[in-house]
């Protein structure tokens, strides 16, 4: 597969503060790629450079074969092929969903059908309501609708589900998966590890301007081979054991208890556990 986004040794400083320190990554066509990291890790700066909102100090950057720093007519032709969903926007408040999406469609050479987009983002019943009357989750789906109306080959999603309730978040994930099925390459930044796990083909963990690791969610930080923790109640105390072979361990445990093991649980490290230990290790 050819790569849609290619970054080599990207550097960016604001004054004396170097916020991105020689970052490299490659995102394949049709992939959902998530960038994870704490606030101040340099995620937003990196993504805004890829979106063409900021320019890098040095490094090679290519998005759909174009340097996002281009300006003028060529920049518009490039923007015609990408979609951007920014963090919390509150504009177009006085327009209806349909008016806003119809208008944004007029910017592109080959937009999607407005009604298709409205139903794709699940706003068919709200199509003629003003944007300001939408709930947080609906508003965010309108943002996605505006981001995908131009039939983008690459979609940038910046913290798309911040402030969603769990149900809205699930609905949103389904939408993103649908876009992936249609072949859209998606670059996602998020604070939610479960979101990265549910959506991303690969994740990059970023801290202090550097990428610590790029891997699939299942394999990040050696997660696939990490020890499981078995815990159970022994009289008044909760005991636990780290083990490579939890099944064997439970067998011996069950022979000791001759029946139900009180409060038995087997815990494998979640993406969040792995992530926190990676960030913690670099912050020490």
């Amino acid at each position, binding site marked *: 597969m050819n790569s849609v986004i290619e970054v080599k040794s990207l550097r960016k400083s604001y004054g004396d503060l170097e916020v991105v320190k020689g970052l490299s990554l490659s995102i394949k066509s049709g992939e959902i790629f998530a960038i994870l990291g704490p606030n101040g890790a340099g995620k937003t700066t990196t993504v805004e450079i890829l979106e063409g909102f900021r320019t890098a100090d040095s490094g090679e950057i290519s998005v759909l074969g174009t340097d996002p720093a281009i300006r003028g007519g060529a920049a518009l032709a490039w923007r015609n092929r990408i979609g951007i969903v*920014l*963090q919390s*926007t509150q504009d177009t*408040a006085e327009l209806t969903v349909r008016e806003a999406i119809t*208008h944004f469609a007029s910017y*592109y050479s*080959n937009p999607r059908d407005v009604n298709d987009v409205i139903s794709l983002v699940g706003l068919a019943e709200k199509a003629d309501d003003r944007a300001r009357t939408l709930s947080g989750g609906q508003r965010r789906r309108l943002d996605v609708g505006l981001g995908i109306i131009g039939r983008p080959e690459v979609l940038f999603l910046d913290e798309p589900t911040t402030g969603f309730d769990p149900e809205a978040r699930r609905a949103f994930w389904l939408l993103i998966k649908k876009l992936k099925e249609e072949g859209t390459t998606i670059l996602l930044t998020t604070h939610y590890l479960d979101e990265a796990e549910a959506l991303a083909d690969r994740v990059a963990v970023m801290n202090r301007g550097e990428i610590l690791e790029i891997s699939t969610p299942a394999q990040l930080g050696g997660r696939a081979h990490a020890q499981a923790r078995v815990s159970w109640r022994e009289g008044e105390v909760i005991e636990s054991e780290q083990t490579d072979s939890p099944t064997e361990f439970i067998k011996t445990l069950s022979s000791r208890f001759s029946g139900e093991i009180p409060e038995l649980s087997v815990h494998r490290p979640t993406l969040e556990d792995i992530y926190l230990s990676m960030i913690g290790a670099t912050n020490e």
Partner: protein
Amino acid sequence: MSNQLPGALAIGIKRGGLEIKQFFRQKESVVFTLLFPLILLAIFGSVFTTKLAPGVTFSQYFVAGMIASALVNTGFQQIAIFIPVERDLGALKRLRGTPMPAASYFIGKAIVVTVSMVIQVVLLLLAGVIFFGVTLPTGADKWITFTALLISGSLVSTILGVAFSSVPKNARGASAIVSPVVIILQFFSGVFFVFTDLPKWMQQVAAVFPLKWLTQGMRSVFLPDSFAKREIAGNWETGRTFAIIGIWLIVGMVLAIRTFKWDRDRS
């Protein structure tokens, strides 16, 4: 699949329609921009009923000033307040991320300014004629000057609004900074009072800015020519008026292009 991007003018005209829709759906903008000048006219027209000269009522003088102010309200004030609001809400950044040409955004703004300006001028003239006995000019030359002042004045006012839009740090600051600037300029420029009655230093400050010249230009349209000798220069200074508007147009254009910001500042 077509690869041809829509033209800047076509998108700009669509944006104009959208801007007008949004303008009229926001009660604050309708009241603030269109109704407030009428309220001022009602107050000043009722309080000051003196005659300034034979056949020249204060209302006649005041309506000329308010029409000049209408160019500032619908252009400078509207633009310098709403661009920071749009910037704060992320609207400008969103647009920057699309293939919309930057020119289309400004074409849209020019359309909404023109429409609201024409509405405001018509409302002021109607209210002036119906309630305050304002008489309209009859000569074609007066109407030509009037039209030239509307077009050039609205243009300079809008461009200076774009230039000024990078001054307020955020949406809340915008009206707090822009409104006092406009009100002070109105006082200094002889909108609310007879210009020649103002202290010398106020007149000199006002003479730097376009509003004083627009106001004087509108007086040359709405007041009899016999009144010209009561102006500072003893005549209407029409040539100088358009020259100063022209200079501000160029200055405003340079400032607007150099300072325009699509994204809010990061702390």
